[in-house]
């Protein structure tokens, strides 16, 4: 069991390292999804299946889709990179292999029995729900207000400009495609 944890942690750390050193934002996003999935497997090993499900659904699902949309809206790529450099078409190998490791671990865990669900330290979703809507009810309300503020703020920022700016901005400098590497 400790071995499973160490492998998963290694996958998470490797994927995160590839995220922060990545050059292409979409490739970095792929590794970020792998990192989040690895953390979800860690949650499962730690005996927190509800947190693992939330991690996959909200983090690796919803938030990463938001990131993907923004990357696609901001990156100007007239020619698909995969068509210019065929090697780029194989970039999914890295995330795919890391995810395969996670999948094998998950199958092993499910076949051998997930430790958290049987161990004494496991916390079932029922306990989480009862505690969440009991002593933590105020925190839930505060979280809902935070989300409301987030929605309003995002709407305000994403609104199209109503009036023309009297002082036009200077012409935008050409966006640098890659960061300068030392």
């Amino acid at each position, binding site marked *: *069991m*400790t071995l499973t*944890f*160490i492998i998963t*942690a290694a996958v*998470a*750390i490797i994927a*995160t*390292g590839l*995220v*922060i050193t990545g050059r292409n*934002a979409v490739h*970095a*996003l792929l590794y*970020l999804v792998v990192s*989040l999935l690895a*953390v979800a497997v*860690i*949650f499962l*090993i*730690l*005996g*927190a299946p509800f*947190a693992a499900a*939330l*991690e996959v659904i909200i*983090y690796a699902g919803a*938030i990463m889709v*938001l*990131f993907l949309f*923004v*990357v696609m*809206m*901001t990156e100007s790529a007239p020619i698909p990179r995969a068509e210019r450099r065929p090697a780029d078409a194989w970039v999914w190998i890295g995330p795919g292999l890391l995810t395969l490791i996670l999948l094998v671990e998950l199958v092993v865990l499910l076949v051998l029995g997930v*430790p*958290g669900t049987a*161990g004494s*330290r496991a*916390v079932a979703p029922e306990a*989480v729900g*009862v*505690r*969440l809507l009991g002593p*933590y009810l105020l*925190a839930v309300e505060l*979280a809902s207000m*935070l*989300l409301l*503020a*987030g*929605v309003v*703020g995002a709407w305000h*920022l*994403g609104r199209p400009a109503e009036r023309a700016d009297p002082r036009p*901005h200077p012409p*935008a*400098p050409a*966006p*640098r495609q890659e*960061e300068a590497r030392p």
Partner: protein
Amino acid sequence: MTSIPTEYALYTAAALFALGVTGVLVRRSLIFVLMSLEVMLNATGLAFVAGGSRWGQADGQIMFMLVLTLAAAEVAIGLALLLAVHLRVGTLDGDRLSRLRG
């Protein structure tokens, strides 16, 4: 069934958090900075869940859910700001957003 030592999970969380801090400090592309922030919040959630798992209480997972809410709100605002910056300035390079410098 042996359980995982809590220290291992905390070491992993610390490593992930350090990687996120490194990304925030090193990268200049705003979208990578936001991704590193996500990594940091995720590491925080891992630490919470590890702590809750240590005592067998649900509080760790509840704090993780609150961190998740915070991350969702933060990423919505952050990405909206990023799109606004992209529309106005035309770049996502943090070094070029220096018009406020006196």
